[in-house]
């Protein structure tokens, strides 16, 4: 049944999707900064910086929306994640801090560009790695299991380490890095007019697509033993799986054939479908196998007010976002 809790959960899903498509690609850009090679490496880095600079902060706020709506709408889920996943979340936060600040210091700060560029690039790899790991560990059900054990005789490692320091979450972590890098490469082919750079990122995109496949295969194999819910769900959601495959093939073919705009769209679709595939697979659970959306939901008054707030926010936000993107798509005025 679809009620207010499901709708709010849907909003979180949409915001997460937006974050992955925008903020995720910004992290992917950092990955390519790290792997910038060849004669054009300086220009590659410049392109990455130019396309991220005006928008990364706005992109980043999607994550804050996810967090804020989660703790308002589903406080017990937030509380459980914050407790059991304390360590990976903290490391991810450190990555976020370093990525953001290194990026601005590179443009404005002291000590020249190289050191900050390095810090930016490394943090851009670590953060999505942890992001994927966190999602992976939620999917396995280990988070909810560990939360049950907190008051018992469980050891520190059983509660705070093992739920995420495992093979499947790690595989999802690498999968996320590869996916974001793929996304960034396809975006960058559209963002530049320079044919050489475009070709550089086309090749990189194709390489990342390969990495995505390897990581996905590993994750799927591990999924059968480690993440019962995802494995079952994924089989159950064949339709989504098929759509994901179509989008993936379309993205890679378009990139191969140099239809960059199509490639970008298809890549975005592919990434979104993967995310929704996971979320649908674990529906109605927020944190499987115990905490459902309904169980975790805040009282109805809060949800109603939150819904009103979200609508008001969206009315301000969506036109603003549109305006921003339009501003940076148009050429500079003389």
């Amino acid at each position: 049944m679809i009620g207010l809790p499901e709708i709010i959960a849907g909003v979180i899903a949409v915001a997460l999707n937006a974050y992955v498509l925008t903020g995720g690609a910004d992290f992917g850009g950092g990955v390519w900064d790290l792997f910038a090679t060849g004669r054009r490496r300086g220009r590659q880095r410049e392109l990455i910086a130019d396309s991220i600079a005006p928008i990364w902060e706005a992109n980043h706020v999607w994550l804050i929306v996810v967090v804020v709506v989660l703790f308002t709408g589903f406080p017990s889920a937030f509380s459980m994640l914050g407790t059991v996943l304390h360590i990976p979340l903290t490391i991810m936060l450190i990555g976020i801090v370093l990525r953001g600040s290194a990026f601005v210091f590179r443009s404005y700060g002291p000590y020249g560009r190289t050191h900050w560029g390095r810090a930016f690039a490394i943090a851009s790899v670590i953060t999505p790695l942890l992001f994927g790991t966190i999602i992976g560990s939620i999917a396995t059900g280990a988070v909810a299991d560990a939360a049950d054990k907190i008051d018992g005789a469980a050891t520190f490692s059983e509660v705070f380490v093992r739920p995420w320091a495992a093979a499947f979450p790690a595989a999802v972590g690498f999968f996320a890095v590869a996916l974001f890098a793929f996304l960034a490469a396809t975006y960058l082919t559209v963002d530049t007019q320079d044919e050489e750079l475009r070709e550089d990122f086309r090749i990189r995109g194709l390489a990342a697509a390969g990495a995505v496949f390897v990581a996905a295969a590993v994750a799927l194999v591990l999924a059968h033993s480690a993440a019962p819910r995802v494995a079952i769900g994924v089989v159950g959601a064949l339709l989504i799986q098929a759509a994901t495959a179509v989008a993936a093939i379309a993205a890679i073919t378009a990139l191969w054939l140099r239809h960059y705009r199509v490639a970008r769209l298809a890549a975005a679709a592919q990434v979104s479908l993967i995310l929704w595939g996971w979320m649908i697979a674990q529906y109605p659970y927020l944190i499987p196998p115990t905490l459902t959306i309904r169980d975790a939901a805040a009282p109805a008054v809060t949800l109603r007010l939150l819904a009103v707030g979200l609508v008001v926010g969206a009315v301000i936000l969506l036109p603003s976002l549109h305006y921003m993107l339009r501003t940076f798509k148009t050429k500079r005025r003389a």
Partner: protein
Amino acid sequence: MALSLGFHIIFAEIGIAMPLLMVLAEWRWRRTGDAIYLQLARRWAKGTAILFAVGAVSGTVLSFELGLLWPSFMRLAGPVIGIPFALEGFAFFTEAIFLGVYLYGWERVSSRAHMSAGLIVAVSGAASALFVVIVNAWMNTPAGVTVDAGRFVTIDPLAAMRNPSTFQQVVHMLLAAYASTGLAVAGLHAAVLLRNNTLFHRRAMMVALTIGIPAALLQPISGDTSARAVARWQPVKLAAMESLLDTQRGAPLHLVGIEIPRALSLLAFRDPDAEVRGLSAFPRDVWPPIAPVHLAFQLMVILGTLMALVCAWAAVTTLRRREIADHRSLLAALALLTPAGFIATEAGWVVTEVGRQPWIIGGIMRTGDAVTPMPGLAVPMIVFTLIYLGLAAVVAISIASLVRETT
């Protein structure tokens, strides 16, 4: 958490006031055509970009830390205070979007659109402070909930937002942001002016003072209103602020060792003979740590008084059509006060937060019951301390080089 907040609050203040300065400079440029103002607007925009980014990342840390450090607090309070936090989220979003437009849009949008973008940044910065301080005010004086055995039976998030501390705290916080940042910027330029009297720095200082002076003059009035609200709704905190042990009628006020008879009763209750309850009127297990609260309050009041006095001096100088920039002792006083606002802000937050202890939600939940069961919290503490110290150092160096660039 306290550490992250103590760090974040500085950037938040700058994020609230700096956009206003930069729009003001741009407006002066468009009005007068004086290119110095344009240079100023661009320079300040650069500074804002650095500080905003650091503010944004430290704010992100905070929103996660609420769950990382205080999971039980969030489980209980999330449904009540989530709404202002969610609204705050939208304020950030608007701020981030239009800051992007402002910083990177000089050549892309019309002059009116550009100024408006700057104004929107300034307004949404103030709005985010409004929302988040509402949360804090609710923690001090919770409203809109009925409690039974440590659980909320009914909640009314809108009533919670209108709790008795909201108004005073929000006004005081916003004034603090404008006063601290305005005077800090003015002070930096005043320091340069002492050595090198250029038109650029004169203009910069004057624009900063147009915001700093009114805010600093209003701040003691607003602080007095806050103190009266505290006297009424948080008597234990008031007693700790004044380190008043025994309940007294006609209680005196102590300031840097000077005792002003009956002043406390007068200030707190508008009646020189009013009874002020001392700490001994309350059970010991609800006493906050007295020394830090008392000292922090003294520090805030002393700095606030100094800031207001120097600003009054500067205002009088200007009203008598004298140039502040030609007045070396006034410049020196302004330069000395550069960090004063930020120090007063930290002190004020210590009063509010430590003065609320042992409660995390006044009278409802104890801090000790809210903390995460995860052991070894010292490790992330140390890591974040180091990161923040590093960030603070780099920001300071960047800003210093920005100020020095034009001499």
